Structure formats: C-alpha cells, structure tokens
C-alpha cells in the first residue's frame, strides 16, 4: 500500500467503502483477525502473548472532507453542501469528482468582469456555489448525480519541493498508511489497529470503536493544521512541516495523558526521531472518543503537520509521515 493509492481513494464521511476495501486487503496480509464493526470501522486485532503488557489501540480515520449533492438547477447545475468543515473560499474554480464512478465536475463562479464591487468582497457561500458537470437540464443532472451523491476534490498525488507532498485527504490517510506499519510490527501485548469512519463529521466512528475495543492505551494518528506560513502571527502557528511528528498535550477534544505525552517525547529523543510539540490548542480528534468511552482509556495523539488541511491540496512533509510511523512503533516497543 502506498500513499498515492490511499489519497486518491474516494472516501468522504459516510462513504468510506472504497478506502475500507483497500485497507482491508492490506490488513489481511498482516493480521488474522480483521473485522468490520457496526459503525463501519475496520478493526484489526493481534492477540498478545504477555498478559502483563497493556493493551494498546492505534486509530486513524479513513474518511475525508468532501461534498454531498443537495439539488439540481433548471440549467443542469448541482447544488451541494460540504461534508465536514470546508471553507467555501477554497472551492471556487476547483475540480471535483462525483460518486465512485468519478464523474468529473467543476466549481465555477461568475467572471470577474461581471462582479459588482460588493460581489468582489462577499464570500461565495454554499447557497451560491454550484458544481457543473455539463448537464443541460435538471433531469439530466439528476439522472447522473442523484440527491445524496458524494463528491470530493479531484487532486492528484504530487511530490514537490524539498520532500513535500501535495494531495487530497492527507488528513488522515497518512495515519491509515502508518497504521498498517504498526500492524506489521511485533508487540507482546494485545494490539488493535482500527481504521475509523466519520471523524470529520463529529468523531462518530471512533465512539463505537472505543466502546467495544476498550484498550488500556489509545494512540491516535492524525494530520493536524500547521498554520506556519504567511501572515499567521507566531503565537497562532501550530507546528512546522518538515520538523517532525507533532505530539499534542491538549486539543479541543482531549487532554493527553501526561505520562504518555512525556514518554512519547523521551522515546523520540532516544531514538533520534524528528518530533515537535503541537503548540496550539486547536482542533479535535478521535482521542476524545477513546478517552471517554466505556471505562475510558489513556490517550495521546501523534500528528503529521499539514498545511491547508481542509482544502483540495493538503501539503505535508514525507519525513514527518515517516516520523509518525517510526515514533508509533518505537513507543509500542518501549511499553
């Protein structure tokens, strides 16, 4: 499995089938106990031989931000809404594909020549944005893209710059890719790698997963906003792509277990794995679910710093992606 295949797979929240099928095939080669639970999560378990070791779950989400078709106009355009948080300012003049058949569409906007000064200033919101598939009328549009069809940005996977990658859905296919590496590694205790659904629409898949897995420790592999370039004041910069995997002490969904947070940093330091502390208390992820489900679990989050995270072009450093896997595996071995 490679990152290109994973980021080019179609999987907006609630429509993770394609990603799950890919990962299921890959996971079955590494582990005997692979199942799909009632929330659509792909659960991969490896039974431990040493009952004294803590049971550990690693989680990454399969879903990505995207769009859903909500209507058809008389002249054949599609109305749509975001699935997950997508700022409407990043969708103008972009390419999308709709459904698993990947019907191509474009999101246009009124030409600059026709805009009033007020138009130039006002943000085009989802009430005023449309996907154009070239259909001539509502009937044709509806036949090709029925209500509820999902769409995603159409972005190829491209490596560029000094070891960077631009792609769709690096949030959180990087975590999915690295979960497979963890699954391939040896651990004496009970290990569970879970690929969860619907993170982007309210940490939904992980709630179910956390409830039935009930690990002692849960480590979440994520992508997190970097906000390191341009006009962002230093105090709002979160982490810097290229400077290592980011370890969180706190975000809006959970506070890291203090001891695990320290242990992660110590292991990284000992092994020379590039790492940084996520500096800003922003975002939230599946750690919130694991910490609070059932009897609760100790949690910690490892994130790949990611620029433009909820746009069609996520940007991350390949070395940070590797560091996330390296640190996760090293941590597991340190237990």
């Amino acid at each position: 499995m490679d990152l290109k295949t994973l980021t080019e797979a179609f999987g907006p929240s609630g429509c993770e089938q394609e990603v799950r099928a890919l990962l299921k095939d890959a996971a079955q080669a590494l582990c005997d106990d692979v199942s799909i639970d009632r929330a659509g999560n792909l659960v991969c378990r490896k039974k431990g031989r040493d009952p004294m070791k803590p049971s550990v779950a690693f989680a990454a989400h399969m879903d990505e931000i995207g769009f859903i078709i909500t209507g058809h106009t008389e002249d054949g355009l599609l109305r749509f809404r975001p699935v997950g948080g997508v700022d409407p300012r990043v969708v103008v003049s972009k390419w999308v594909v709709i459904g698993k058949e990947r019907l191509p569409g474009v999101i246009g906007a009124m030409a600059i020549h026709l805009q009033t000064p007020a138009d130039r200033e006002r943000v085009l919101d989802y009430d005023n944005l449309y996907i154009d598939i070239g259909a001539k009328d509502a009937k044709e549009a509806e036949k090709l893209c029925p209500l509820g069809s999902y769409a995603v940005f159409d972005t190829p996977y491209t490596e560029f710059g000094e070891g960077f990658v631009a792609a769709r859905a690096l949030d959180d296919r990087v975590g999915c890719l690295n979960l497979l590496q963890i699954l391939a590694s040896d651990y004496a205790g009970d290990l569970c790698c879970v690929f969860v659904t619907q993170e982007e629409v309210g940490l939904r898949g992980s709630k179910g997963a956390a409830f039935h897995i009930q690990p002692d420790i849960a480590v979440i592999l994520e992508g997190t906003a970097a906000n390191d370039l341009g006009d962002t004041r230093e105090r709002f910069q979160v982490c810097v792509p290229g400077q290592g995997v980011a370890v969180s002490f706190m975000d809006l969904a959970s506070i890291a277990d203090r001891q695990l947070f320290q242990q992660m940093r110590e292991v990284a330091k000992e092994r020379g794995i590039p790492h940084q502390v996520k500096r800003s208390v922003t975002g939230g992820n599946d750690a919130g679910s694991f910490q609070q489900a059932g009897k609760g679990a100790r949690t910690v989050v490892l994130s790949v710093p990611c620029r433009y995270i909820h746009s069609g072009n996520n940007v991350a450093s390949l070395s940070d992606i590797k560091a996330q896997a390296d640190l996760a595996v090293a941590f597991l071995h340190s237990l």
Partner: protein
Amino acid sequence: MRTEDFLREITALKGLSGDEGLVSAFVAEAFAPYCDEVKVDGMFNVIARKKGSGPKVMFAAHLDEIGLMVVAIEEDGSLRLGQVGGVDPRILPGQRVWVYGRKKLLGIIGAKAPHLLSEEERAKNYKREDLYVDLGMGAAKVKELVHIGDQVQLEHRYTALQNSRASVKTCDDRACVAMMFEALQQLKNLRHEADLYFVATSQEEVGSRGAGTGAFALDPDYAVALDVCHADTPGAPGWRTHKPDSLVASMGPYIHPVLRSKLTETAQENNITLQTAVVPRYTSTDADEIGESRSGVPTALLELPLKYMHTTVETLDTKVLKEGGRLLAQFAARVNEGWEDELWT
C-alpha cells in the same frame, strides 16, 4: 490534429501576456500545413496567410493568458503575488500553480486559516495581498531558484464534461485560436477570392497591444475579431450573458453594421444559429484596436460563450467552437471585391 486536441494542447502552454513565444511557436507550426506563409512578429503575433487575389481579410484571436508574477519573497520562503491581466483573487486559495523560476516549480496558494480570521475578515474574500505561494521548500532554496518577476501560471487541466462541453483554463481566448484552426481545415475544401490572414494576437489581456501593431502592419480591408463572451452563470445579470449552445455576433458603434450583416447572412445560409449581443460602446476585445488601426478598418466581432471566464475551469461547448470554425471558413469564402461598394449603403 483534432480541434479538441489543439485546444487541450494550446491551453497547457505558458504564454502570459508579453511572453507568448511558446504559444506562438505552437500555433505557427499547427497552422503552417494549411497556409501559404506563416510568420511570428516581434510582438509574438502569429500571422498565417492563405493567399488570394481579392480583399485582405484579418481574423484575429488572442493567444496570451492571464497569470501571476512573483513580487516578493518572504523570510519563510513563501512568495507574494502580482497579477498579469485580471485574475480574480477568489479563485486562488488552495490552487496549484507553476512558478517559472530557474526550474519549473509546483506551488500551492495558501491563506491564513479561516478559524484565525476575525468575524469581519471571515465575511470577506481573501485579497491577492493576503495570499502566498508555498513551494514546499526552505527560504534558502527558494531564494536560489526564484526571483522577483518570475512568472506564475495557473494549473492546467482539461476536463471533458457531459454533452460535448469541456472545461479548461485559457479558453479565453485560445478557444478562438482553435476556432481559426478549425476554419483553416475547413477552408481546404473551399475556394476563396480574398487574401486571408489568420492572426493569433499577443497582449490582449493588458490592452490589445498585439492586435494594434498586428493590424497596423497588415493593413487589412476587413477584420473579424474572435473572442469569448460570458455564458449564463448563476448570479450574473442576464443581459450580459448568453446561452452556451450557440455563437454570438455583437452589434453597436464599434462593429461595422454591413460586415456584421455579411456574417449573419453567412450563418443563416449555413444553418448556424447566432445570438446577438448589444454593445453600446467599446467591446473590450481586439475588435476595438483593429477597428481604429490606420485610417480605420471595418470590423465585426464573433464571440464564443464561455462560463466562468478568467478561472481555471472556463467551460465551453466544443460543438459551438467547431460551428464557429465552419462559419469563419464560409465567411472567408464569401468575401469579394463587390463588398467595397456595399460598405456604406
């Protein structure tokens, strides 16, 4: 080459206004097999001649494109942008671009994250000054490879949509260059009296500068400018847009009425539907400069409806483009010495 392939290839080439050489070379090579002589002048205009003994006719479509330019390199290695021609800043956030530094570099246009904006800022679009290009490399490397003044081109992607519609950047106005290409192919089977010049002009987006010098040098008897016009788009005032499924012939003081009639008659005889655009003053196309060249050139304007002009997803109907080629060829074949006497009747 099929006309669709011509469109796909020509729209990919970098040719920001003022530096159209690559595009000119492509057009010159593609037109050459259908013409008697082809040259590229000092302004990067391509002038392709198909000889005749009659009046000199100039067809003109512009080959330059809008784009961006590096105006500053920040300490973090990100690039700030100026514009060449009218680039709508709304299309930029999250867009891929090509930066033509010492190497051709991929960049992503970034902006401050929405959750870090004040409520007031969040209600407004990002301005060009708020945006930057991220090259995925450190400042030292950036400064080694990129300089102020380097050109930045928007991402090229040709997408075939339903119903012979296609979406690609720079249909404005290379789709009309493709229309001339189609006309040249159709003229193989037609006899013409006129001395025909198919001119792909430069620097339209910054004020029809190539068309001005091109028309001066050529000194044509008649001219037909070819450009795109706005197709129906949500939110746009209806009187300024046209249906995407047929060509448009403009009328108004900048358009010669008799030449326009010749165009509409030709369309009628060949069962080609034409919509009408009424333009009360300047047309903001090459027609304006050509019409005022030397002592004046009777000029008509034929337009191809285009959705989302000046975005990376400009969308047109390729069937209409080809109809345009057919109309031009038929028109070219009709021009004769007799037209001179009808001009002011």
